[in-house]
């Protein structure tokens, strides 16, 4: 007999988390981490108890975007997410710092399960999960381990992005995952790309977030982030996400 107890532990650690929203899209560089980070920030801003889990183990980004420190976490029982601007944040960067984590898929899978098994989220209204690009181990594990996850699909209007996001939506529909809807990020001009993509898969198009040149400079500073038009547009979408 060899039984891995971590899935049981993960379920216990997530027991007081009411909702899990996975910000996804398949393709890299479309703003998944930006949307996840700012969504967490703005949801906390209107009073929700919010967690943010960075699952991009080889390119974690939320600590750079929100500016939270990456010291080892406190471990009163499991490990404690760090509280930052009202958001409880957990990332591989807490452990690896700026070091590379060259992880094959099976290791990504194992590390992800380890983090889920030891992190004390406590009571949360919503845990926002920042997904890595690709349809690999992390994406498949979240579908398997957190069946109740609601997937928020980010896209841009770029053709090469739409091609990839379409593949992600295919996967989500195939396994009958819960899809909250599609958001078009980095919009520079009115576009029907996201609503066409959403329509093709029978899911909602939630709206668009503008390309916001000031976001890059604001990154790292929650207060400045909340002042950007990127953040205010995302704030306006909270009701559509039932937040």
């Amino acid at each position, binding site marked *: *007999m*060899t*039984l*891995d*107890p*971590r*899935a*049981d*532990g*993960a*379920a*216990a*650690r997530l027991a007081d988390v009411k909702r899990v929203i996975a910000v996804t899209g398949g393709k890299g560089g479309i703003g998944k981490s930006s949307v996840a980070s700012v969504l967490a920030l703005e949801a906390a801003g209107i009073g929700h108890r919010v967690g943010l889990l960075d699952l991009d183990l080889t390119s974690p980004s939320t600590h750079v975007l929100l500016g939270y420190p990456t010291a*080892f*976490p406190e*471990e*009163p*029982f*499991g*490990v404690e997410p760090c509280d930052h601007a009202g958001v409880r944040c957990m990332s*591989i960067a807490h*452990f*690896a*710092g700026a*070091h*590379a*984590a*060259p*992880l*094959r898929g099976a*290791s*990504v899978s*194992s*590390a992800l399960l*380890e*983090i889920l*098994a*030891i992190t*004390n989220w406590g009571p949360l209204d919503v845990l926002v999960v920042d997904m890595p690009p690709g349809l690999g181990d992390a994406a498949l594990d979240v579908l398997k381990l957190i069946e109740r996850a609601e997937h928020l699909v980010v896209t841009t209007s770029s053709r090469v992005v739409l091609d990839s996001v379409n593949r992600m939506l295919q996967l989500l529909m195939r396994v009958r995952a819960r899809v909250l809807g599609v958001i078009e990020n980095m919009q520079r001009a009115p576009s029907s790309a996201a609503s066409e993509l959403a329509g093709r898969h029978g899911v909602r198009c939630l709206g668009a977030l503008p390309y916001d040149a000031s976001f890059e400079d604001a990154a790292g500073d929650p207060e400045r982030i909340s002042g950007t038009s990127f953040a205010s547009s995302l704030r306006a979408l909270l009701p559509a996400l039932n937040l």
Partner: protein
Amino acid sequence: MHEYALAEAVLRAAARVAREQDLARVTRLEVAVGELQQISQELFERALTEVETASDPRLEGLEPTVTIVSAALQCRACGATFAMGEAAGEQGADEMEAIHFVPELAHSFLACPQCGSPDFEIEGGRGVTIAAMEGVTDDA
């Protein structure tokens, strides 16, 4: 003491399996802890009896035993096999603490002693697993 969260996971898994197998009580539980995890045997045995968040009547009086399993690493680049103590790479307190939390970070800090690659297989000695479990049914 994040080992208490792992101990809770072990006990919850044991209670679940006992429930699925209709055991009235679990009488023996052997837990294997990988060397990479750097958890002391005594500490983890204590944690397994002290954690109350996973208390279940089926586990009452249970005294789980813990065995530490040596790490066995094999390089995928050059094929060399090596133990944790033989690995190349930084192994200061911070690095070992990181691996203690997330054993896969061995790939960030340890390397093949023969070719320097971080692309090795962890053949054994990672993770916390239930290695053996015994129990009795009500009618026994």
